[in-house]
């Protein structure tokens, strides 16, 4: 079976020659979660956005479900991949239910199907459909908004989910709650587990959610390890990262 997502020597250079991505080779096996860690500017978000064609590449190849992104119909590809960002980007003029059903709506599915699916997804992310389907986004708390964002990303049967700092703006308790919602959802929204590529600044989150953790440094893969081996790795880049993160956590507590 082909990897759900595969990067083959992917590079992206700015017109001035600076490389945002440098020879990135990486596989995300179907049904697994891979976390991208790294400092701001290390290329995590850029790499993530090459998967659904939101960001171009200069050389190399990005494959989704075994086929190059460049050769796929961009609109269809994007509809088949869920997308969740920190700011959620819920459409402020649509109800929660319509937000969730939007990919189905733009695909021209029937009203009944859309409503049913939106309600089912709401329940799956722990929000009562009766109570929430007709609400407007501005009436929700941060955590509720992110639940709706998650439901929206998976409502059309997407089996791949791209997440960019999805829980970065939430308080620690809500964040932990959301991590469990995500885990539960990726396991049960479909028969097969959802494939997730997750950009995060949070080491604990990466270790909790992902099977593999990839550390990016200046657009290069500095480490690509199993999550349970990450902390004990002797790679200097990993040790430096872990130490830096731990020091920060220590300073705060």
């Amino acid at each position, binding site marked *: 079976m082909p990897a759900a997502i595969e990067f083959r020597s992917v590079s992206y250079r700015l017109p001035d020659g600076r490389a945002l991505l440098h020879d990135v080779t990486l596989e995300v096996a179907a049904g697994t979660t891979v976390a991208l860690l790294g400092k701001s500017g290390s290329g995590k978000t850029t790499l993530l956005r090459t998967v659904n064609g939101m960001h171009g590449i200069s050389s190399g190849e990005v494959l989704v479900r075994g086929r190059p992104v460049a050769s796929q119909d961009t609109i269809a590809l994007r509809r*088949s991949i869920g997308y969740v*960002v920190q700011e959620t980007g819920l459409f*402020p003029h649509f109800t929660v239910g319509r937000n969730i059903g939007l990919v189905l709506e733009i695909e021209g599915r029937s009203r009944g199907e859309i409503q049913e699916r939106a309600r089912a997804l709401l329940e799956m992310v722990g929000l009562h459909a009766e109570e929430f389907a007709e609400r407007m986004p501005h009436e929700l708390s941060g955590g509720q908004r992110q639940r709706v964002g998650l439901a929206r990303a998976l409502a059309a049967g997407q089996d791949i989910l791209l997440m960019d700092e999805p829980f970065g703006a939430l308080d620690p308790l809500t964040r932990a709650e959301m991590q469990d919602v995500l885990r539960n959802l990726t396991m049960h929204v479909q028969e097969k587990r959802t494939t997730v590529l997750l950009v995060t600044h949070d080491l604990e989150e990466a270790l909790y959610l992902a099977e593999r953790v990839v550390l990016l440094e200046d657009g290069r893969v500095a480490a690509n390890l199993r999550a349970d081996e990450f902390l004990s790795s002797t790679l200097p880049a990993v040790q430096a990262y872990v130490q830096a993160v731990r020091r920060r956590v220590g300073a705060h507590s």
Partner: protein
Amino acid sequence: MAGGGFLAQHWDEIATLTLEHLWLTGAAMLFATAISIPLGILIARRRGLARPVLGVVNTLQTIPSLAMFGFLLPLPFIGERAARIAIVALVGYALLPIVRNTYTGITGVDATVMDVAVAMGMTRGQRLMKVELPLAMPYILAGLRTATVTCVGIATIAAAVGAGGLGEFIFRGVASVDNRLVLAGAIPAALLALAADGFLGLLEWKLRVPGERRP
């Protein structure tokens, strides 16, 4: 007092000229809207065009209205009929507020919302119809409102080139130093402007984006 007599005597004419005024303004607003909204969308897409286009419509706005009617008078086709001159001139004044507000409204849509719209696989047309226009609508309506009120006012000058409308009364009143005639034109014109303003304001409120503090 001859007030009652004056009204009774001029009632038919007030009604006719009010209708004429409405027709001039309405036709101009239809044309202006049909030109301005697509133009606003275009310059929101190609930002390089925004400055020159807004510059041109801005300049139109600065032409004194009496001069504008005068300029159009000798033109072929347009100059042949007074109503055409009036409508073209009014369109010229209505462009700026609508173009500018359409542009502001669309470029002001939250960047994350647009990013998500693209990432979830909306086509260009879907993004425009489902996201950009609805979110820009309060702005666009505010522009239409400004343009309509401006047009109702400027349309009174159209009488100078014989296009009719409530300006007839005003010009006649000024010429014969009869304030009653001036008021017979000015009051209905003001009422028209207020009514249009109120109606579009209501629409603007109805179509506001929930939870947003933008206009």
